[in-house]
């Protein structure tokens, strides 16, 4: 009997707005029922200010249609807007993707003219990228060898991605949607340098490796992308 008495939906007011806890042990239908009831209980007038709501699901996972039902009930005929819906459960598929994106994959080969090497996550290439060859990665690119071709880091749009090479003399460096190319005059290339996007100048710069530690502190953390989500 105590089960029935237990509140499935709890609301708490904070200074940022309203937090709505939904119990994660009952069935979804029950929770929805009670939520609907609670919502109908208090219909604010249209003149009242809009309140931001954070929904916390606990260890409950919602499918897309359940999610839209939930959103509909909370926002319909109410002065609520949903700020976030948080769940402590992450689908396996998503975790796999996160893991893949944060993994460093080591390759040992020469990427020759005309060849393309694509990696999901970070690429650690032990070998050269020859002129006309191309390496791409969704994360960062580390090359222990000569980079003479094209390297494209953060291919899905990650501007924080960077490119490191033992010997850097690339045809092009690309990071997210930025492209920089080698100068028209013959250049000798540089040793142990990195390429990254400079936000102020809004372009790719090449600098000494030491600069990385100041500019991209997050590389020391393993789960950086998990955290950035």
């Amino acid at each position, binding site marked *: 009997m105590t089960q029935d008495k237990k509140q499935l939906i709890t609301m708490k007011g904070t200074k940022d707005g309203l937090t709505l806890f939904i119990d994660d042990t009952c069935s979804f239908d029950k929770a929805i029922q009670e939520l609907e009831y609670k919502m109908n209980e208090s219909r604010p007038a249209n003149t009242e200010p809009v309140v931001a709501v954070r929904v916390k699901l606990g260890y409950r996972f919602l499918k897309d249609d359940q999610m839209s039902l939930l959103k509909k009930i909370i926002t319909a005929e109410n002065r609520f807007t949903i700020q976030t819906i948080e769940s402590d459960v992450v689908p396996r598929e998503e975790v796999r993707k996160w893991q893949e994106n944060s993994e460093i994959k080591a390759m040992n080969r020469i990427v*020759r*003219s*005309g*060849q393309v090497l694509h990696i999901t996550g970070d690429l650690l290439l032990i070998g*050269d990228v*020859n*002129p*006309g*060859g191309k390496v791409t990665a969704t994360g960062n690119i580390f090359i222990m060898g*000569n980079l003479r071709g094209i390297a494209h880091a953060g291919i899905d749009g990650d501007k924080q991605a960077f490119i490191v090479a033992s010997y850097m003399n690339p045809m092009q460096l690309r990071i997210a949607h930025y492209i920089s190319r080698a100068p028209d005059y013959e250049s000798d290339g540089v040793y142990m340098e990195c390429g990254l996007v400079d936000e102020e100048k809004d372009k790719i710069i090449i600098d000494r490796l030491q600069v990385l530690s100041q500019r991209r502190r997050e590389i020391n953390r393993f789960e950086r992308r998990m955290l950035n989500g």
Partner: protein
Amino acid sequence: MGEAIVITSGKGGVGKTTTTANIGTALALMDKKVCLIDTDIGLRNLDVVMGLENRIIYDIVDVIEERCKLKQALIKDKRFDYLSLLPAAQTSDKTSVTADGMQRIVAELKQEYDYIIIDCPAGIEQGFQNAIAGADKAIVVTTPEKSSVRDADRIIGLLEKEEMEEPPRLVINRIRNHMMKNGDMLDIDEVLQILSIDLIGIVIDDDEVIKASNKGEPVAYKPSSKASIAYRNIARRILGETVPLQSLDTEKGMMQKIKQFFGMRS
């Protein structure tokens, strides 16, 4: 059982045909049984360089389409009994040559010959695929020019995907010593650093090569020039000998060196 070596480059005009003719000749000089195959259908040259143009009756397409036996199509060289040429077709449709057909021909020739040297057409299309289909080993020819090195790199990438006995080896052709010294041309180390495969020989740009091929006599036949010695050295390296790289500087004692070279051989 012989071994089949394909001579390829990707880019045209770097000296595939010349290299094929000369390596073949140099191997024949060392008493090996050698068969050259020209796979550049429609643009055959190897017969001209070898001076065997007017002896062609049947060609490789005739063999594949079974209009003649393989032995009938082989042309015996003027100078060596053990050197033969299987010429390319000049007019036939090149689509009739397949990788499968090439493998059959090469396998048959391997029974009879020590070395089968395959002259590959330029490019990376079907002709290239056919040429490398039957080969056990590959030699990539490049010149010290950027475009040529780039194409050689591409070709090496493609060859690495094939299952060959060993990684391809490199011939750097048409070296002009004075330009290399001035830095106007890529030097040998630069080329090797990019391609990172083993070097099997360097050949300087020599007027004699052009003179000789116009005469229909490969330059390696007569040891009168540096290029000739270079090709002979390549042949010796194919046979497994360790031969130091030729010095590029032309000095007074060049004749001396050639004499010394012959002294070593006999």
